[in-house]
Structures are given as C-alpha cells and as structure tokens.
C-alpha cells in the first residue's frame, strides 16, 4: 500500500470541494487512554441510572416499614457530602502535583483524599449497620432494598477507588512518574470525580427528596 502513498490527491476530490479537513492520524496514547476511560465512566453511569430508576420505582413501596424521612439523618449525610467534595479537591491537587512531578504534594494530596474517602465510608457503614440493627435491613421492604442497593453501589465504587488510590501511591513510590503511571493517575482522578458527581445525584434524589417526603 505504500507505493501509492503520494499519488492521486486531485483524483480523490472530483468535485473540487477541497474543504475536507484531513484526519491527522491516530491520537496519542494519553488521549486514547483518557477517552477510553471516559467511555467506561459513561457506561458506569448508565449502570447507576438503573439503580436510580429502581429507587424511583420502589421508593414508595415501604411495605408498612419506615419511610425515607423516618430513617435519614441529614447531619450525617451533610458530613459525608462535605468529605467527598473536599476529597475531590485534594484529588485535584494530587493530580496537579503529579503533573509537575512533585512527590511530596502528590503523596499528601492522595493521603488526604484517602482519609476523606475512608471517613465517608465509615459514616456510610455506620448508617447501614444502624439501620440493620433496628430491623430496617434491605429485606424489610422494596424501598429499603433499592435504598441499600443504590447507596451501597456507590459505596462499593468508593471502596474500589480507595484500593486503586493506594495502588497508585505504591506505584508512584516504586516506579516514579512514568508516562503509563501518569495515564493511570489521570484515569483514577476521572473515576474519583465521577463518583462525586454520582454522589450529588444520590444526595439529591435519595436524601433530599426522600428526607422531605
């Protein structure tokens, strides 16, 4: 195919439109990786949307059990939200530190992100444990089923994120700011911020709307 690489531009455009912007060729690895991860995030959000839909369908089906307003504690949820939003900020700081190859600020940013994520998880775990102890576990009613699944699915994502975060720190420690490590760091940051966006949805749909009902 190489033999004809330089011939025939005039023939390919018989109508002389000539305005076609030639595609420059394959994108760089950094762009390809981030793009692919974006596509994954979109698919992950589709999965969450199913749990949101299930919650919307089932939130009224309390089977004589508690309603949302009877079990949600707004104060805890507020702390959770602050933790997660702050962690997005510190994660952003860690990303900037990685971009300028500053290990100290990278470790600090990641460590704070990790601690905030763990606080979030601890509060969520306590909320779940408390509900189960009071007999309001996920088997109590369809409403609680959908509540535990939606919030728990987000919690599982945050847990996976923490595991990934620690792996990233270990990797920077062992390998330094290599190109592939930086690409993974970029994906991790995208993941962490996406979880924040989903939490905003959970906070609004579950705790704000449900708390008022």
């Amino acid at each position, binding site marked *: *195919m*190489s*033999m*004809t*690489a*330089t*011939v*025939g*531009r005039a*023939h*390919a*455009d018989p109508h002389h439109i000539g305005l*076609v*912007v*030639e*595609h*420059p*060729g*394959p*994108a760089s690895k950094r*762009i*390809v*990786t981030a*793009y*692919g991860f974006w*596509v*994954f995030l*979109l*698919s*992950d959000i*589709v*999965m969450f949307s*199913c*749990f949101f*839909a*299930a919650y919307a*369908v*089932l939130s009224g*089906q*309390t*089977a004589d059990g508690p309603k949302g307003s009877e079990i949600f504690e707004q104060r805890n949820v507020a702390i959770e939200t602050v933790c997660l939003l702050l962690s997005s900020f510190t994660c952003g700081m860690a990303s900037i530190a990685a971009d300028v190859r500053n290990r100290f600020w990278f470790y600090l940013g990641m460590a704070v992100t990790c601690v905030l994520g763990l606080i979030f998880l601890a509060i969520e775990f306590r909320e779940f444990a408390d509900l189960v102890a009071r007999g309001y576990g*996920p*088997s*109590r*009613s*369809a*409403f609680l*089923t*959908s509540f*535990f*699944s939606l919030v728990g699915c987000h919690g599982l994502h945050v847990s996976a994120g923490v*595991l990934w975060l620690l*792996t990233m720190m270990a*990797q920077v420690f*062992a*390998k330094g700011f290599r190109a*592939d490590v930086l690409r*993974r760091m970029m994906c991790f940051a995208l993941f962490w911020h996406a979880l924040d966006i989903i939490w905003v949805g959970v906070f609004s749909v579950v705790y704000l709307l449900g708390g008022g009902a």
Partner: protein
Amino acid sequence: MPAGRTVEATMLGKLDWSAIPFDQPIPLIAGAVVLVAILGVLIWVVVKGHLPYLWHEWITSVDHKRIGVMYILLASVMLLRGGSDAIMMRIQQAVAYQSQGYLPPEHYNQIFSAHGTIMIFFVAMPFVIGLMNLVVPLQLGVRDVAFPTLNSVGFWLTATGALLVNLSLVIGEFARTGWLAFPPLSGLSYSPGVGVDYYAWSLQISGVGTLVAGINLVTTVLKLRTRGMNYLRMPMFCWTTLASNLLIVAAFPILTATLAMLLLDRYLGFHFFTNEAGGNVMMFMNLIWAWGHPEVYILVLPAFGIFSEVVSTFSGKALFGYRSMVLATMAICVISFMVWLHHFFTMGAGPDVNAIFGIASMIIAVPTGVKIYNWLFTMYGGRIRFATPMLWAVGFMVTFIIGGLTGVLVAVPPADFMLHNSMFLVAHFHNVIIGGVLFGAFAGFEYWFPKAFGFRLDERWGKLAFWFTFLGFYVTFMPLYVAGMLGMTRRLQHYDVAAWRPWMLVAAAGMAVLTIGVICQIMQLVVSIRNREALRDRTGDPWDGRSLEWATSSPPPVFNFAFSPDVRGEDAYWDMKTHARQQSLEHEVPEYHDIEMPRNSPTGFVCAFFATIMGFALIWHIWWMVILGGIGAFATFVVFAWRDHDEYVIPAEEVARIDRINLEERRSLVSMAGAL
C-alpha cells in the same frame, strides 16, 4: 452428624455428590463426550509439543487478529453446542404429541433456556465481536486496537462465561426459566437450585468481557484512524462497528445492573422483583428489555456492515448511497433504545403507551429498508460474482425481508396480543437472527477467512453449505409461523393438538437439512485446510477488495502495515489500486522504520482463571474461594501494572524483509492487470 455437615458447608457450600446427574443419561453422556474431547485435544497438544506455541502465540497474544480468531473459534464450538440443543428440542416437539416424548420437563426446560442463552451470548456475540476485532483495525489502517491487553482480558472473560454454562451440564443444572430468566420464576422461591445462578454469573462475567470489548472498539474507531481516514471515508463495516459498540457501552451496563438486582434478591433476600414486600416484577421486564432490544441491533448492525462490504466487493461497485447508509446505521443506533416495550405489549401499559412503542417499532424498519434498497442498487448494474460470501448476502436479503415483515406485523399491538409468546414469535426472531446475524457471520467468515489464514475456503463445499442451510432454514421455521397462527405457544414440552403435529414433523425434517448444512461447513474447513497450498492467497487481495484490509498480506504481519496508509477518499484500497495501474507503479524503495508493538501478556488468561474460580464459588456459595478468586484477580492486575516493558521493537530490516515479499507479489499482479 450436624457438625460434619457444617464444616462441609463451609468448605464446599452447596456442592455435594448429588450435583452430578447420575440418574440422567443424556447430560451425563454429553458431558462425558465433551470431557473426553477436551482431554483428548489437551493430551494431543501436550504430546505433540504444541503447548509452548499455543501459549506464546495464542493464549497470551494481544494481537487483535489472533484474539478475533479465538473469539470466532469459541463461537463456532458453542454453535455446535447450541445447535445440539436445537436438534433435541425439534425432535422432542416432533415426538411429544399426546405423549411425554423423550425429554422430561425439567430437562427440556433447561435445554431451551441453555439454547437461547448460548446462541445469543456465546455464539452470536463472540462471532460478531471476533469479526470486528479481526477486521476493523485493518480497515482503519492501524496496527492494533486501542487497548490490546484489555482486549485479551475481554476475550478470556467471555470464554469463562461459556465454560461455566457448559459446566452446568455435569455439575448441578442450568436455569429452567427461558433465556431471560424472568422473575418471579427465576426468584429463589420458584427456582431454588443453582440453575439461575449459573445463568446469572456466567452472563455477569462474560458481560464484563463484552463491555471491555465495546469500550475498546468505540475508542479504536473514534481515536485510532490512519491519516486521512475521515469519518465519511470509513468503510461501512467500521460505521456499523461503531454503532454496535456504542450500543454495547450504553446497554450492557443495564444487563449488569438487572442481573445484579436478581442476584441480590436470590442471595441476600432483597425485594427488587419478588411478589412480597413491594417488589416489582414488571420492572425486571422493563430493565431486561431496555438492554435486550438494543442487543438485537448490537448483533445485526455488524452483520449489515459485513453485507455492505460483501455486496460492494462482489458487485465491483462502490456502495450505493454511502451517506444514507451511515445515516440509517446511526438512526437505528438511536431508535433501538426506544422500542423495548414491544416485547410486552400484553403487560397492560395502556393503549397510548403501546401505540407509541408500536409506532417506534415500525419506524425503525424504515432505516433498515433504506439499507436493503442500497444493497439492491449496489448490485444493480454491477458485474456480480456469486462467490460464497455473496450467496450468503443475497440469501440474507430475501430471508431478512420476510423476518422484517413479520416483525412489523407483531409491532402492531392488537396483532401482538394474539401472537405474543406463540410459535409465530419464535419463527419471527429466528427468521431475523438466523437470516440476519448468522448469515452475516457466515458471509464474514467466508469473506475474511483468507485474510486471517492466507488461503481461501473451498467454494464447492461453501456453496453446498449455503444451499442446505438456506433451504433448511425455510423448512424448519416457516412451519413454526403456521403453528403459531394455529395457536401453538412457545416452550411446550408436549401437546395434544392434532393440527400442530404435521408442522412439527416438517420442522424436524428441516432441522435435519440444517444439520447437513453445518456438516458441509465443517467439511469445507477440512477440505480447505487439506488443499491450502492450492487455495493460497499470495497477494493479500483474493476478492479484488476495496478497503484497506486487502492492502496488506494474508495473513497480515503482526504490525499489519509497514507504513501507515494515507487515505484520500472512500474505498481507500480501490483508489490506490486504480492509481497504481494508471501510473504503472513507482519502483522506488521505501524507507522502513522500526515499529513498536505491545508485548504479549498472560493477564487475560490468568484473570479469567480467577474469574472462573470466583464464578464457580459464587454459584455454589463457597465463600472462602470467592475471596481467593477476588484477591487473585486484583493481584493479576497489580502485577500487570508493575511490569516495566510493555512494548517491543521490530527492527526496520525485519519490517523491510516482511514487506518486500508481499510487495513483489502485489507488483506482479498489478502489472499483469495493467498489461491487459
């Protein structure tokens, strides 16, 4: 001994000797035959010393062409398994008139559930994904897909799902719920066994593989195209690949979420789809079909792409109405998400809702009709060569139109109320899936086989296979339309209505013809491999093709192209050939460069190994093994992330040596054509 049982339950969960169906000869013998076959192949491989070759060249390969071939191999093997199920069902319905037939109900129910599950998830899906993997990077003029190692992970996870489904044949049981496992039947109270768990976990695991493949191919098409390969210069197959994989990315998470909900109901006593505590069964219907309807377009769009390539090549013309084809493809991609409710018009959503979805279902037939006309006009005035791929394409057009028309018929809600869950419906979806997807897969198989292996397939056996399959299809499925009109419902283990009997007998005879078609297909492969020297494709362009996959040798070198092709218009390779003839070829020696390629990696295989352990353990409630499998899978990824060299370099001299051989063959061909 309660204490002993507790220890056993901790160690083995629900698993004990009663899981092996010693009292049922059919699955036991079938399982034994498969086991002996697998062991035989393994022993042969080890004794002959092929194991290192298999490990280095195939199992750990991250080359998109090899992975594509493995996908197609998996699909072909599973086609035989799903086909055996089909034969058993046809025989059962032929003999079970006023009698129990030879299959007990609980076994028959497993067979039709396994048949549907296998044919969709482990035949149709891997076949089209395999073809897309094999061809799309070549058509785009690039060296690999966006994420080669992930590609391997995706394949091996699909294989894991297939393995688990087959395992259910001998250890435990498969679902008796139909291929979509509707609750409450699939809930714990009506399906307490492991059948539904086998179903759900194998689909969850292979679903992850499919999602990975989808992300990979979307990114490949959108971000990895060679210079000058603008969107509106991409071959049609790349467009349908893009549309199909966008649908995978948007629809498969719905399947994952839905099956996760079903599993939560079954394992942890949740109430998504139960009759008690406010669960909503119809929510399952909505969710599963919000995935399920896009799924049929995920399967058939790549087939449409294959037919576009085949019809254009064998008519010797550019595809008629290229832009309208692109538009039709993307229209189908969008509308396919707006028709899911037509699978349950009888749910009682009300006339307005049913009307909207009925109209949407009829509208989606319009872009499909556009495509049919485009293919017909491509053939019109062309110099048509009726090679085997073209036969499949023409057979498809005839068959798919009939299937499409019956589809538009059941898209009318009042008609659907009469035909819902009848044999008419069974005939309809087999008409579109066999006539569309399977014919497409076979066309693609015949068309791109020389590209993958370097020799053509035997035309005589290929044509025999086509005619037997084509006729067999009609003899098998047209009677089912009639039986459906006569009121026969689907999934009947036995029946007492005399009027249905003759049609079931005809259908069974048709199944025999279809089986001959399959045998011809196998014979074709055997004969072609034996005569491979005579069928050798030396130039890399056996069909006088038009797109870039024919611009490299057959089989292509690992790096696909020694130089990234520079594309100037539609039908990139046709353009190059025409100009090469006019200019009687430049004989200058090109300057070769080193090429970097991704290194092989066992990550996919090892990851699938742990996924198999984890899936099996989840099915049988062996919790310690679940944890072990999870840790193993995570560790695999960490080890992968830790490696220091993920690429190797092919030196320029080696590239030059490989490229020159093909260049010489090609020059002699073109100069011969130029002399004419």
